[in-house]
């Protein structure tokens, strides 16, 4: 239509829409008039009134249809029809509430699960940081292929800050533990503290809700700006939202600070899942971490850097600009130490989502989404089956409606509207279910992670979207099927008993088989991950975790340093050992199976490094009798003792991998003993003689490959507080370690009453916690697998029950001819098992492919793990047997006379 034509007709159509009642009335009048006039004509020709009216009516050829076509001509029908369909749909559903409830519950489970997982993914990866215009933010990191992304050194940041021409704001950030003292009450900030540049808040566009945030002016001279900004959550928890918090004087790590502002409630910083309590300027770092030289150390690349691009500047332009500065800087100040640095260049990544969470979590999330999508598919199949059955039951109604002139497409539209209505109800219920479910999910997540899983617009749209899709998916086929009937058959009372309409049967059976297959796949995956978890739990740790309590202490937060720090540690150990019930106590810098380890370089006499090889090892300063406490077997030589202090020559103990690597595969352990190695090429900690070789033990994760470790007494190296400021005490107890917690704590506090103690748990607990992600995933996969099993069983039951009812006549005949009840039961059960078996076989055929797809996330489990296959198959047959058993029993109780008469 040409444009001006449009302009003319649109108002007409809109008017038709709004004045339809009026238009309908007008149409009635018009046609009635026509009838009167036509009748009058006939009368004029000499025909009787009654006959005249009849003829006029016939001439008009079906008034209702005419009216309908006129209305069609107005072409705004579909809205009116839709509303009509909705009304009708609601009425129909109200008449069969049981059916509606079953469908809505099934859909709610499927849609709810999907929405819950989507909320998780939304919070982790899709939701942008709650800052201004997050799309303009970029993450800046020096990167190369070998190491991935590194951090910034502070001098590098200063260079970029001062010389860039393409950035509207740039900042660096680091986290750290902080001891907070308010009104004399000291505690360790539970969510930690943050050090940020002065431009942090302005670059992110964050305004304080109380007081003010700090600016570049607060970050100029080191040590001159003791100001702090607290998070909204901390303000609520510690200060009860009191306005007097702003301006309050608090002590951070013993140093006086003033609280100058509070950040908005939804703001959490730039690291998803982490929300620091206290933020201070980066230039105050040395005050809070006495003895640290990080700010001026060009070799320490420890900071995360982000920036906002200037308007109109592209990422490429900024990269070029920053790369030039970077090269200049490197020439002047040098590269990070101890790392491979070839090909190091500036890389810019989108910063809208903050510091990216680990990719492993992302892979798990995608897999979860797939699992949960399959569950929804099974749920939809169930509903489709139910709708097919219902369609068959409604055939009389449909036949009547078709015969009085309803168009087939109109009916289909109406049935689909009913399906959409069900889907909408199911979606709403599912959305609610998901809101509760995500609360439960949060409980599975470790404590330090704080995620905002509250539903937002995106989640809502997602839920609405999949509800709609589901509705169309399960509604389409039954709608088409239901209206494709022969009128005569339909009017005679629906499909008669005993008549096998093979195609709907095949369709329903096919749907059930696909359900079984999908359940098999889900159960298989759940089994794989559960088995993998079992394997991880059974891994040889290399130490004995039973009966050990671990506690982390951080005396630097209250001002300890240098020799005072070292003596404090000695005292703490002495007191801990004196507690009755304690068998041994020691301490270490790297905890057992924790995330933070210290890696540095070594020099080994007589060892020639291969091309491009880095002579490095994990370093762990420990206390006396560490190996005895941790339960790590000594292969050769001895443990550290009290005598290994600063007055005697330096000694070290290495693990088996270290020995084998540097001293040969054959007899590496024997050869290592007695050798002298140099530790810490940069810090030059000195020459240490190896006095013992111990077994390998897990350092960071349970699924890591063996790594080289060198242990040395913390007393024998003048290590700065940044390296030994934070140590973990291990205490082996005779009885249950949890029971001794208080006794040991009190003893430690007796040495120093303000000692920050945290992370108190048994070693067994700590090991278990390192598997939180895997455990959570195995849990969820199992839940979804069982859910799928439940849904498939219900579907199977429905199909078997339905087909059995329709075969009532046949059963009657069989029994009349002499079949026993047993035979009838066997017949029904065979049907159930046949369908299940087909599904299981197809599922098993897919299993290897599925296993291969996830094999990278499994540990110690074959992708075609036979045990899992066996268990999954068996699990699948159990509900099949049940699903078949109940209808079978009912069928066998049929009285042949009744069955034969019930046609």
């Amino acid at each position, binding site marked *: 239509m040409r444009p001006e034509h449009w302009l003319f007709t649109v108002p007409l159509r809109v008017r038709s829409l709004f004045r339809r009642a009026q238009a309908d009335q007008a149409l009635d009048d018009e046609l009635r*008039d026509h009838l009167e006039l036509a009748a009058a004509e006939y009368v004029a020709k000499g025909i009787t009134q009654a006959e005249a009216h009849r003829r006029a009516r016939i001439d008009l050829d079906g008034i209702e249809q005419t009216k309908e076509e006129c209305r069609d001509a*107005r072409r705004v029908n579909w809205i009116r029809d839709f509303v009509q369909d909705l009304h009708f749909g609601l009425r129909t559903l109200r008449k069969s509430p049981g059916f509606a409830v079953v469908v809505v519950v099934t859909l709610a489970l499927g849609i709810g699960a999907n929405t819950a997982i989507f909320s998780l993914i939304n919070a982790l990866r899709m939701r942008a940081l709650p800052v201004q215009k997050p799309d303009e933010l970029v993450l800046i990191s020096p990167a190369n292929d070998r190491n991935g992304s590194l951090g910034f050194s502070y001098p590098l940041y200063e260079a970029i800050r001062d010389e860039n021409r393409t950035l509207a704001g740039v900042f660096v950030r680091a986290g750290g533990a902080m001891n907070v003292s308010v009104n004399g009450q000291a505690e360790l900030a539970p969510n930690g503290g943050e050090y940020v540049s002065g431009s942090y808040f302005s670059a992110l566009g964050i305004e304080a809700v109380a007081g003010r945030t700090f600016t570049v002016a607060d970050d100029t001279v080191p040590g001159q700006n003791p100001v702090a900004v607290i998070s909204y959550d901390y303000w609520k928890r510690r200060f009860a939202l009191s306005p007097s918090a702003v301006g309050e004087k608090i002590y951070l790590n013993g140093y006086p600070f003033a609280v100058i502002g509070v950040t908005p409630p939804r703001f959490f910083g730039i690291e998803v899942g982490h929300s620091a309590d206290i933020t201070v300027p980066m230039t105050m770092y040395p005050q809070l971490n006495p003895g640290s030289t990080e700010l001026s150390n060009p070799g320490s690349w420890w900071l995360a850097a982000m920036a906002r691009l200037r308007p109109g500047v592209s990422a490429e332009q900024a990269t070029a600009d920053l790369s030039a500065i970077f090269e200049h800087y490197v020439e002047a100040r040098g590269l990070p130490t101890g790392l491979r640095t070839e090909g190091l260049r500036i890389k810019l990544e989108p910063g809208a989502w903050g510091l990216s969470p680990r990719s492993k979590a992302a892979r798990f999330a995608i897999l979860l989404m797939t699992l949960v999508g399959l569950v929804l598919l099974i749920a939809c199949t169930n509903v489709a089956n139910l709708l097919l059955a219902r369609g068959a039951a409604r055939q009389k109604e449909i036949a009547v409606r078709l015969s009085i002139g309803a168009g087939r497409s109109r009916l289909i539209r109406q049935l689909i509207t009913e399906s959409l209505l069900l889907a909408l109800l199911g979606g709403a219920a599912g959305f609610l279910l998901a809101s509760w479910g995500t609360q439960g999910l949060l409980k599975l997540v470790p404590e330090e992670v704080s995620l905002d899983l509250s539903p937002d617009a995106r989640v809502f749209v997602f839920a609405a979207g999949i509800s709609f899709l589901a509705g169309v998916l399960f509604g389409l086929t039954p709608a088409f099927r239901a209206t494709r009937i022969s009128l005569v058959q339909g009017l005679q009372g629906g499909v008669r008993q005993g008549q096998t309409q093979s195609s709907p049967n095949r369709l329903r059976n096919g749907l059930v088989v696909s359900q079984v297959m999908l359940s098999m796949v889900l159960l298989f995956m759940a089994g794989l991950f559960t088995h993998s978890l079992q394997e991880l739990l059974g891994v040889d740790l290399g130490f004995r975790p039973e009966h050990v309590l671990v506690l982390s202490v951080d005396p630097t937060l209250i001002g300890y340093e240098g020799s005072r720090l070292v003596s404090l540690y000695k005292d703490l150990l002495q007191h801990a050992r004196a507690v009755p019930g304690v068998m041994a106590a020691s301490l270490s810098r790297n905890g057992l199976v924790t995330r933070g380890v210290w890696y540095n370089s070594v020099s080994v006499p007589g060892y020639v490094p291969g091309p491009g090889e880095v002579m490095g090892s994990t370093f762990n300063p420990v206390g006396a009798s560490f190996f005895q406490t941790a339960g790590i077997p000594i292969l050769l030589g001895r443990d550290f003792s009290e005598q290994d202090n600063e007055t005697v020559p330096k000694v070290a103990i290495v693990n088996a991998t270290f020995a084998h690597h540097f001293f040969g595969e054959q007899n590496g352990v024997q050869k290592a003993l007695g050798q002298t190695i140099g530790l810490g090429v940069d810090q030059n900690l000195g020459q240490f003689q190896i006095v013992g070789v111990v077994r390998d033990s897990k350092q960071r994760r349970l699924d890591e490959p063996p790594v080289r470790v060198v242990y040395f007494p913390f007393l024998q190296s003048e290590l700065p507080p940044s390296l030994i400021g934070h140590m973990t005490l291990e205490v082996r107890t005779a009885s249950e370690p949890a029971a001794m917690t208080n006794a040991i704590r009190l003893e430690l506090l007796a040495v120093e009453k303000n000692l920050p103690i945290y992370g108190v748990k048994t070693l067994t607990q700590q090991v278990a916690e390192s598997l939180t992600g895997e455990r959570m995933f195995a849990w969820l996969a199992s839940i979804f697998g069982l859910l799928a099993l439940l849904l498939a069983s219900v579907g199977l039951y429905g199909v078997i029950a339905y087909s059995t009812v329709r075969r009532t006549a046949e059963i009657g005949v069989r029994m009349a001819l002499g079949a026993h009840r047993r035979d009838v039961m066997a017949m029904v059960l065979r049907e159930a098992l046949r369908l299940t078996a087909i599904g299981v076989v197809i599922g098993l055929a897919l299993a290897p492919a599925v296993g291969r797809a996830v094999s990278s996330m499994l540990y110690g489990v074959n992708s075609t793990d036979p045990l899992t296959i066996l268990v999954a198959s068996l699990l699948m047959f159990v509900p099949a047997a049940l699903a078949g058993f109940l209808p079978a029993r009912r069928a066998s109780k049929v009285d042949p006379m009744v069955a034969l008469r019930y046609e």
Partner: protein
Amino acid sequence: MSKPSDLVQGTLDMLLLKILALEPMNGFAVSQRLKQVSGDVLQVSDGSFYPSLHKLEQEGWITAEWKTSEYGRRAKYYSLTRLGRRNLGKEADKWGRLSSAISRVIKLKEA
């Protein structure tokens, strides 16, 4: 009842427009006039041109208003719009071309 085929539908529209071009009238009168003029050759059932009338009204080629007829009752009178008049001209031309083309083919002499 069968729907008018596409060809007839298109032509029907044109006929209706033409009749209304002569003078505005109500639906019944249009159907009577059509029967009369075509000498009962064009058998258009009454029931099929009301939808056409409404469609034409929707397209904006005719407009309707309620008037009191000569019988003293209210009736809906249709009349042609300027748009409709223009379209009528075009449709008439098209029809002329089509019919002469068909005539030419039919008049082909057998060899």
